[in-house]
């Protein structure tokens, strides 16, 4: 199948640069779509091809008659639009700057609201959500998600595990209500329903973009160049590219993908096969779906970073983009070409089998054997073992005869420091029929490991490829501790009650851990289970006690691990709610430090802001004075200019300090949110939700004791 190019149905120039990713299309007057984009630091441009509507704050651009400019005093980080105001049937513009969010009614030239966003702003989306009858604005910050209504009031707030990088509303569980899909820098896609995370999908890299496809499918793009589609929470396909996807859109039964370098391709929805491709002249800034021609169906609108806008109609199967009719024989022709290719491949394979059969007359002796040969009954065995000495998992590959493993490639994503593969190619002197490879999965997620082993003899010119797939369970980096280790249990513990038989627990352990021998109960009567495990990463101990009375205790210093274990167990046992009591002295100490830091930084910030304002005022006064002085006293002018320079330098220094404190504030806020997230993950269901709500309140009131209490028992009361 040949990949063809496409012609745009419309094309226009904005004559402005466009900042990639900060673009939206909205109907500010309720009927006409306007492209709105950030044109460098603090400038917003609005393109209104359907007649002028601009008054008030926006100014007509000098570079383009149909473009208006809007200048903010702050950097523009995110743009979104939607019919936020319930009674007005028109879109409101939401502008996110590093620490503030502004909702602006372009048509009426009024501010809807303006509020601080202390968690930062990375992404904004506007849509209906859950049971709320009015549209909400969702603000994704540094490890938090916030929902606002049209008056700027907070509807809910939740913590996530990293900077939010993509958000869409999507009916994930098909109950007729929208859920919020949140993509984060920590490589998880989370589904938020009713202010509670119901599903976590681990991915192999930071999420860059999400886009709905159909009722049951959504697409995603990652920072490692992967794009793909999920159907009902299961990945349908994915492909990887060197470029990163900037935007994904579902247009005309195909997935259009816009890459950073300006390439746009249309892919088959079920396989990811490329059907059409175009290349923009410069890098891409955005790709949106909008009815920009007012024809009743949305076109794909591609924007380049130089301000070039191109519209493509939905892709159509047979005709592609051209309206010309294809000849009826075209299908036959294509089929014939494909059949020819198939025939050639089959002939090639057949040829090899025949040649193989012919060559079997050779003997296996070292001198006579051809340089491509191998005994037919060679088998490859693969085993994974914990290796406490090397602090890693050992993947052992071996053959069953005198053939050697020349090289092995291990393909897996997210577990290697560099790239997607780990290769081993032993020194010729060390060639054996057995090869060992160390693996160190950095996260507790299940990993599929694909192995390609090249098997032959040391002098071979051609090697047989053996391909195998091995699944590493979620907690593969924990192994049974040696009985000799007499270390005392850690003083950090989380405990909760479940009503399940120990047999079921055994199944969970055997499914999720990689132990040398499976855990089995010695007899039916046994009601208790004690397990002492040892983490290969940092040699810390994990004690799991499942009591006869249903009391469960996990002893570990790692609060994240405790949360992971509880979440995994809850999913396995199908628990909807679970409350727990936690003792994590280390985490509590850290929490106190972070809270202290946060309040300190706040003070410094307000002091610095006041100083800056003062100096800026002085400069504005001094500068005209210096200019005036030029007419009568040059000496006076010189000294005044010197003062201006000095003040300017002070201002600059102040600015650097402010930036440093801001960065510090963001990091401490992030670690604070991370701790809160861990605390929430120690509970399940409504208890987890309660933790988030209570801790939000405690943070606002700056109440450290309450926060500690929440961490311990799940509530401040």
């Amino acid at each position: 199948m040949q990949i063809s190019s496409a012609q745009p149905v419309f094309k226009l120039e904005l004559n402005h640069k466009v900042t990639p990713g900060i673009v939206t299309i909205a109907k500010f007057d309720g009927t006409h779509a306007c492209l709105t984009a950030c044109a460098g630091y603090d400038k917003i441009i609005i393109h209104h091809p359907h007649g002028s509507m601009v008054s008030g704050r926006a100014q007509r651009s000098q570079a383009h008659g149909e473009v208006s400019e809007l200048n903010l005093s702050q950097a523009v980080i995110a743009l979104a639009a939607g019919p936020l105001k319930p009674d007005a049937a028109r879109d409101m513009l939401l502008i996110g700057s590093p620490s503030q969010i502004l909702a602006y009614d372009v048509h009426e030239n009024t501010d809807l609201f303006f509020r601080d966003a202390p968690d930062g702003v990375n992404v904004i989306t506007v849509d209906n959500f859950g049971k709320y009858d009015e549209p909400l604005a969702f603000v994704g910050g540094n490890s938090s998600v916030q929902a606002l209504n049209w008056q700027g009031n907070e509807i809910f707030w939740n913590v996530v595990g990293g900077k939010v990088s993509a958000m869409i509303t999507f009916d994930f569980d098909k109950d007729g209500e929208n859920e919020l899909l949140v993509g984060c820098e920590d490589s998880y896609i989370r589904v938020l329903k009713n202010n509670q995370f119901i599903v976590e999908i681990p991915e192999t890299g930071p999420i860059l973009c999400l886009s709905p496809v159909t009722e049951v499918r959504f697409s995603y793009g990652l920072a490692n160049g992967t794009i793909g589609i999920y159907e009902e929470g299961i990945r349908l396909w994915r492909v990887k590219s060197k470029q990163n996807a900037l935007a994904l859109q579902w247009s005309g039964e195909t997935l259009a993908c816009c890459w950073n370098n300006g390439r746009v391709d249309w892919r088959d929805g079920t396989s990811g096969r490329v059907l059409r491709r175009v290349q923009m002249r410069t890098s891409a800034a955005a790709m949106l779906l909008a009815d920009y021609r007012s024809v009743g169906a949305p076109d794909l609108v591609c924007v380049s970073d130089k301000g070039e806008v191109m519209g493509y109609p939905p892709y159509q199967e047979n005709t592609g983009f051209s309206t010309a009719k294809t000849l009826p024989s075209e299908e036959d022709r294509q089929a014939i070409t494909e059949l020819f290719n198939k025939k050639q491949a089959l002939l090639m394979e057949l040829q090899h089998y025949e040649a193989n059969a012919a060559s079997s007359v050779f003997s296996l002796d070292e001198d006579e054997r051809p340089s491509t040969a191998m005994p037919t009954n060679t088998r490859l065995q693969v085993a994974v073992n914990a290796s406490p000495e090397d602090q890693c998992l050992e993947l052992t590959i071996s053959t069953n005869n005198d053939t050697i493993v020349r090289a092995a490639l291990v393909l897996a994503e997210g577990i290697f420091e560099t790239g997607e593969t780990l290769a081993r190619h032993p020194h010729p002197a060390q060639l054996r029929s057995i090869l060992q490879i160390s693996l160190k999965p950095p996260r507790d997620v299940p990993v599929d490991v694909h192995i390609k082993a090249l098997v032959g003899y040391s002098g071979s010119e051609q090697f047989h490829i053996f391909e195998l797939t091995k699944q590493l369970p979620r907690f593969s980096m924990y192994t049974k501790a040696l009985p000799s280790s007499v270390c005392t249990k850690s003083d950090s513990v989380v405990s909760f009650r479940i009503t399940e038989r120990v047999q079921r627990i055994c199944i969970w352990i055997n499914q999720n851990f990689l132990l040398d021998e499976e855990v089995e109960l010695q007899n039916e009567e046994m009601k208790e289970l004690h397990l002492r495990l040892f983490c290969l990463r940092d040699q810390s101990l994990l004690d799991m006690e499942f009591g006869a009375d249903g009391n469960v205790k996990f002893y570990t210093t790692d609060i994240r691990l405790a949360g992971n274990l509880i979440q995994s167990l809850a999913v396995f046992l199908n628990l909807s709610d679970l409350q727990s009591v936690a003792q994590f002295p280390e985490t509590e100490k850290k929490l106190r430090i972070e809270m202290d830091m946060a309040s300190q930084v706040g003070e410094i910030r307000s002091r610095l802001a006041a100083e800056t304002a003062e100096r800026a005022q002085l400069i504005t006064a001094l500068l005209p004075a210096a200019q005036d002085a030029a007419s009568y006293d040059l000496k006076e002018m010189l000294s005044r200019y010197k003062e201006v320079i000095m003040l300017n330098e002070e201002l600059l220094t102040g600015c650097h300090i402010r930036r440093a404190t801001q960065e510090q504030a963001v990091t401490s806020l992030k670690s604070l949110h991370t701790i809160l997230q861990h605390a929430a993950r120690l509970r399940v269901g409504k208890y987890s939700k309660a933790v988030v709500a209570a801790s939000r309140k405690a943070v606002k009131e700056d109440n450290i004791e309450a926060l500690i209490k929440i961490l311990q028992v799940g509530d401040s009361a």
Partner: protein
Amino acid sequence: MVNYNFPGIQTDKIFTASGNEVKGYTRKGKVFLTIETSVSDTITSMCVLGGDLILCSGRTITCYRDLRESNSYICDDRVLDIAAFSAPNSTKVKLLALVANKGAVVLDNGRLVSHVTMSSGPSRLTVPPPPHASDVNAFYGTADGSIGLLAYEDSILSYKCLMEGRGLGSVVCMGWFINNGTTHLAVGRHDGSIQLYLVDVENITEKLRLKFTYFCGEPVTSVTGGCVGSEESELLASTFSGRIFALRSRRQVSGVLLSNIPQDALTLRRSKLEVEVARLEKQTANEREKYQRSTRSLTAGLSAPPLLDFQCELSGAIQDAWQEVRITSAVSLDMLFIYCQRKLDIQTDNAAVLSVCSSQGSHEDLLATVRCQAGTRRLWIQIRYKTSSMRVSESARVMIYALPAGAPRVARLLTVRLPILSYYSQHENTEIENEPRSWSEVSMSGSFSVAEITSWLIDILPGDLPRPASNVVFARSHTLLKTILICRYERGSARFRSDNISTIAVIRDTLSNCSISRNIRAEITYNIPDECCSEAFNQIKEDFEREYRKYKDIVLRKALGSLDLDDTRVNNDSPIICEKYMQVWNNIESDTNVTNFKELINTIQQWYADWHELCLNLKDYNNNKIALQKALNDCNLEHIKTILINQNSTQT
């Protein structure tokens, strides 16, 4: 190989050669001639003119007249292509041959009458259509992609480039396409493109005009004009994987001709193919099952699939010392696994995913995988030595395991050796030695054979080396610096001359390493003129200045770019940047953003360091080194010269 004759001369017979056998076919496809020739190597090219049959195999050109061997000639290197010309009023034929690494030669009656050295590496010849067929001239295509004309007039062989390479793939084949009275030169390239150039038959020395390009995705092995099945002119092409197809002019395809094939014929053909494929599928499944069964049996049989068909070639260094490995496969590729004992820089095609793995243990080795897109049959990877202060004195062996996407599941091992002096890929005439350059020299004498020294030079120089002979002389030039290396060796003694002192230093190190590791006693002496650094610098002075300006412009452009100027502000009536900056800014798109400035600096510093090392003069070296670096960075020509010359005065 098949030799297509030009229309009008001998259209009624076809000659083919395979192995050392030549066959002749009549128009109807009957064999009328079979000769088992006496040549030892495989016949690589052939030419028929009247009663003369000329065969090339290896380095030998053998002429047959009326099927009897009349004479033969042995060239210095492999013969790549040949053309024969009949002289008016004479029965003798003149031969024009392309010789690897040497250029072109004209032979008359088994005697060399003229030769010319061509640095672009010509690979193919084709004789222009009448009325020029009797003059001794031919179009040539080269490894660097350019096309030109060779002409032998007044006993002088000369060449003229008619179309530059422009980064296109090397020319693999050429043919003629004649349509409606216009003559086109058809060119098939290694990168899979087929191009038609319009040739003015009356005036063949005119520049060629590109009329048409088609891309078929794999190396083209032959192109020729003709017609199959219809009366319309078609361009026939065959490819590396064995595909044969024909191209017609666009007008004919979109017009009436396409519908010429009736719908039911197409459907019939399709269903026929479907049946055939189904049959093949069944057969393959059977064989597969048989093979699978044999893998489960207790008695060990032998699984030895034939070698997969791969073409792998390494180019000489281009920009930034990158050397390109081009891999062409008959089956589509899934992955490449690349291993080298030494850390190398590596990069590849945009469509493929390169992932460099962590090294094994404490070894400093390179382990990388390249995952290809579906259907990839051609792929390039670029590799180079890591730039470090240490001089490379041992070549690296790069092992590439090519894993195909489908059956059979076997991986072929391809090995390439990365030469140390990778820039010396251009061939020069040895007469260049007479140019007034400041030649440094290293000579070696000892008990080694010509074959041995050739094998050592393989580690040093890129591309093919001349076959060992009793006395070998050849010259190469540096693609970037244009410095020359002349190699001259025979049994027991070798002499290398270059105006680049670093080249001499590398050769000295490598040869002494090689001779020691092979336990051969050899004595190495060298002679370095005092002024070699300054002379060499004089040679590249202009380049250096130009690169310096380019470098400065790029720095400036970067700064201007971060000013966030948009086009409106720049194009306004009242420009906010000065004219010079405007110029630099506007050149952004037109000029490429690559400069060799840093590389040139390193080269000159290396020269200086090598001079001090080879002359065993380390006095003031460290002070001068820093001064030189500063002068180079500022492009202070006078100062650089003083330092480079001063080195000499301190010695004397």
